[in-house]
């Protein structure tokens, strides 16, 4: 990745974050924290990794992305808008009656959404089913799924992990948004899903730990995951919940709270400044 490409990703991620704030502000509800922590991952996936075409959202040969942690769909919608699946204006309709952007992803409503999700623990199973379908039909599409670190407390995640390891789904790449927080506090205090790496290793995964805000590190990790044969991959991405909006960073309270008008202005001003800074570089 050259510096120009990296900067372009950083700019896009910044716009995705602005879309997140725009969406949850107008919805007066939603989940900014985990949307912002995953904004760089979403951006990397949709602008560097996934073989998808917004003109053909149903292409049977496309790579799939399942947002298992469905509550952070403002981030997914934000990147789909940047990618051109629908207009950025749609963000303002998030969670409103009649909007194509439901509070949790609905594949029937939103172009580019490959699976409905929102009940934690279920998306990874669907992703395994898609990866298996590719194997059965000898197709070369890959399947990516993003999980929260709190989500790992769901038993179904480990049913699916066992399945993926057992069936050697090397076309499956699981990403864990390891922001360290869930709703009621730090994951180490609430549910204790750690150690995450050892668990996935025991279930037969190739395991990598990366900085989830470093595009070069993400590039290396996804390239490695693609090259792994005979087992599924997991990328445990260390992130900061609320990343990019200073007062939201590492704050449990910003998991599922919308900013008020004043906070909205502050957040947008920060992001605009970051954008201008990048553009001026």
């Amino acid at each position, binding site marked *: 990745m050259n510096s120009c490409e990296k900067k372009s990703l950083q700019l896009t991620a910044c716009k995705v974050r602005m879309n997140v704030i725009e969406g949850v502000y107008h919805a007066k509800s939603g989940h900014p924290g985990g949307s912002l922590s995953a904004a760089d991952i979403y951006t990397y996936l949709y602008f560097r990794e996934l073989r998808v075409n917004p003109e053909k959202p149903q292409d049977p040969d496309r790579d799939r992305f399942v947002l298992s942690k469905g509550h952070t769909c403002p981030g997914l919608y934000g990147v789909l808008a940047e990618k051109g699946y629908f207009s950025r204006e749609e963000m303002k309709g998030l969670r409103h009656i009649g909007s194509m952007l439901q509070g949790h992803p609905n594949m029937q409503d939103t172009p580019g959404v490959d699976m409905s999700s929102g009940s934690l623990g279920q998306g990874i199973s669907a992703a395994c089913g898609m990866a298996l379908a590719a194997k059965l039909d000898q197709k070369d599409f890959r399947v990516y799924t993003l999980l929260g670190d709190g989500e790992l407390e769901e038993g179904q995640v480990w*049913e699916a992990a066992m399945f993926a390891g057992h069936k050697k789904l090397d076309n499956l790449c699981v990403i864990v948004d390891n922001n360290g927080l869930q709703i009621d506090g730090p994951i180490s205090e609430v549910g204790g899903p750690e150690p995450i790496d050892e668990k996935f290793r025991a279930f037969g995964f190739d395991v990598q730990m990366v900085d989830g805000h470093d595009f070069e590190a993400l590039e290396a990790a996804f390239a490695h995951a693609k090259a792994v044969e005979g087992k599924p991959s997991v990328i445990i991405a260390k992130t900061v919940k609320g990343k990019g909006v200073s007062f939201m960073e590492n704050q449990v309270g910003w998991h599922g709270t919308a900013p008020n008008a004043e906070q909205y202005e502050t957040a947008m001003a920060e992001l605009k400044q970051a954008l201008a800074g990048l553009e001026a570089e």
Partner: protein
Amino acid sequence: MAEMVKLATRESFGQAVTELAEQYPQVVVLDADLAAATKTGIFKKAYPDRFIDCGIAECNMVGIAAGLATCGKIPFAASFAMFTAGRAFEQVRNSVGYPHLNVKLVGSHAGISVGEDGATHQCCEDLALMRTIPGMVILNPADHYEMKAAVKAAIEYEGPVYLRLGRLAVESFNNGDDYSFEIGKGITLRQGDDITIVATGLMVSETIKAADALAEEGIHARVINIHTVKPLDEEIILKAAKETGKIITVEEHNVIGGLGEAVAAVLSEKCPTPLVRMGVQDVFGYSGPAKDLLKEFGLCAENIAAVTKKALGK
């Protein structure tokens, strides 16, 4: 008339899905370590590459089926009704029902006729659970020929289907040669104007026996087979209500939430009619030979006849 066969509907299901596999290459079958019991083992033997053993993890199995369906497969995901509809209810609701995916959910060993395994495995709630999911089609075939036709209909229908299978062998009563199955269409098996007995699944053959015995006594009960619990054939039920004035429902399921309540809702809204709901009366089952249990719970021809007479004041 095609020959009479005495087979459990799970066996008929296993045969049907295997026989149809060549014609429908998108069909794949999933099971959760019960292939020998649900009879998906027949398919596994014939098409090992299209059979997916998911291990004892029903919630994940339903999710796998959902993912397969998004890629154009027609997955049949089978386990005991207790686990397909019960354990994995929320997965069925959110990963299959809400996105309206083309998954065929198979609940075997439904009702108390599971027998000796007892209450933990006797699922009398599956129809109730599945009925509450918008867009879910619920099929509960009554004999070998009906099951075979239902499996084909489920494959050809695009959308989620719950297919209920029984453990107990049942004598076929449909004519396999000219039997025609249409999702959502009840079938009148016996004409009669004194009263109507609406039955589903295993209870249909018992109801026919009851009606035939009553006919010898000069009581003419109409018998309606509801193989599709949802969408319910309201027309056939309302017609029967108007023409016979009394209805009895019979199901191997809790009287709460199943066929009886579905019929009650239609009648009370559109044609208030005296109704008796036969079924499991909001209690858990217990261990015992299936046939004896059915008698204990009053789900046999003799008791259906007795309840019918009582409803007629005879």
